[in-house]
């Protein structure tokens, strides 16, 4: 049985990572930006799992790490969304360009 080589998976994760980054850079909507960040984190998860499965199958460090990442990401998202809601209260918008009061 032939299985997918590691490089493919790494390629996938890298692609995912940069897609996320691209989203972060280009999208104006804060929620979307948050989602793009989630993409980046998930690509990292894929990395960990893949490495763990292919290279070091005897230990489970990678898996655990990805679990923790998911948890933390959730927490982060929660706080972020709270903040965004608050931002919406004060700015009446969740467009990132409206929140550029402080500069220079």
């Amino acid at each position, binding site marked *: 049985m032939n299985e997918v080589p590691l490089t493919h998976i790494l390629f996938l994760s890298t692609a995912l*990572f940069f897609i*996320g980054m691209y989203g*972060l850079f280009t999208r104006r909507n*804060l929620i979307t*930006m*948050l989602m793009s*960040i989630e993409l*980046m*984190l998930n*690509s*990292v998860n894929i*990395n*960990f799992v893949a*490495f*763990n499965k292919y*290279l*070091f199958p005897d*230990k489970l*460090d*990678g898996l*655990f*790490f990805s679990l*923790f*990442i998911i948890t*933390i990401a959730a*927490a*982060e998202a929660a*706080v*972020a969304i*709270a*903040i*965004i809601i*608050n*931002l919406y*209260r*004060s*700015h009446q918008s969740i467009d*990132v360009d409206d*929140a*550029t*009061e*402080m*500069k*220079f």
Partner: protein
Amino acid sequence: MSSNIFILLRQELILSLLIFILLFIKIGKERGNESVLNLINGLLVVNLAVGLFGMSEGGIFNGMFTTNAFIVLEKNILNLALLIISMQSYAWLKNHKQLAEFYLLIFTSMLGMFFMISSGNLLMFYLGLEMSTIPLAAAANFDLAKRKSSEAAMKLILSSAFSSGILLMGISFLYGTTGTLSFDVLTAHITNNPMQIFAFILVVSGFAFKISAVPFHLWTADVYEGSPVAVTAFLSVVSKAAVLFTFTSILYKVFTPIATVWYSVLVVLSIATILIGNLFAIRQDNFKRFLAFSSIAQVGFILIGISGSAKAGSASLVYFVLIYVFSNLAAFGVVSVVSALAGKENISDFKGFYKTNPFLSWVLTIALFSLAGVPPTAGFFGKLFLMMAGAAKNNYGLIIFASLNMVVSFYYYLKVVKAIFMDENDAPIQKLSIPKITQLAMYICIAGIIITGLASLVYDYIYSLSIGI
């Protein structure tokens, strides 16, 4: 083992205990803010005291959590800073509704830092890092009504999430190339191969973001400006210090094999940081923004010190941080009092400040001199020892650059002093009545600024504990 836990983890445990107490206070019956604040400050004193006695060395959770005298010392310094901050934000929190939440957030983040500092494993380190960052983002938004506050929080949470994404990428590569997460094992596997260097750079960027080294610093000024002074102080002193401690220990412990690489990385970063920090600090009028950029420049100097990578390197770092706690917090203390009582946060508002508030003026002046590194304040010694540590590598170009930049930094610190003492102002800030406890905190800071430098035993003590490559 079991008893051992309580000794090794005592600082973390007491902190968690405080958090619970706070929760109980919260759910318990309503009581006046003053009493709560006094209670908390009392507790913080206890918290600090617990750390002070009994050095203990060892690791638990098979090496995920390690501690030793040096780390305990670092944590104590952070505790001290926390205490001072809380004493200084008295005026601000006195009539704030959710002060309990404020402390909850701060303590949680503090706890995260403790774990980060004494992490012996990348996972633990990551957990600590996030645990220290996320609550801060919330805290940054603590002035719910203020527009700036929420903007600052947003910037902080987004960019920190992004940076942790980068950091995680780096960690994952490290894991991929070495197959382990624990520091001790990692060291053995680190070599010069590009993958690892790339991973290393990703990790460093994560750190650089937290300590706001150029070009990863851009969030700093905005967040500092937007968030409440207390939070800003916490960000600029405590969290920065915690990350620096971790950074150093990881560099010295884990990345020893590629020391030459990270030396040059540090040099590049420090040059950029000092330069940009100074150049931006010159123009600032908002006091918190000004302090933000000045602290960026300070980080540049710290990086030079770290790059010295001998025992003196980490010693001078911790020493400087201790001094930095006193000096920076003294400055922030004055700013917080002024902004809480007079609602002014601009340097130009401080013109003729000396006529109305001599005490605050002197505190601020001494603090600024210490930041600038003027003897006999401790800042002088702190900065000098950093540079000496850096000069150990005989890279005199760097030293010349740094010392000339010190002159630039003099300019903007003296500019503030000039505003306070020399500039005429028909409507200066009125006479402020400072809360006793805040005054006490300021006295502590001043005492620290004077004593830490001249009394050499402080440095010698730190040096005796410190670890180099």
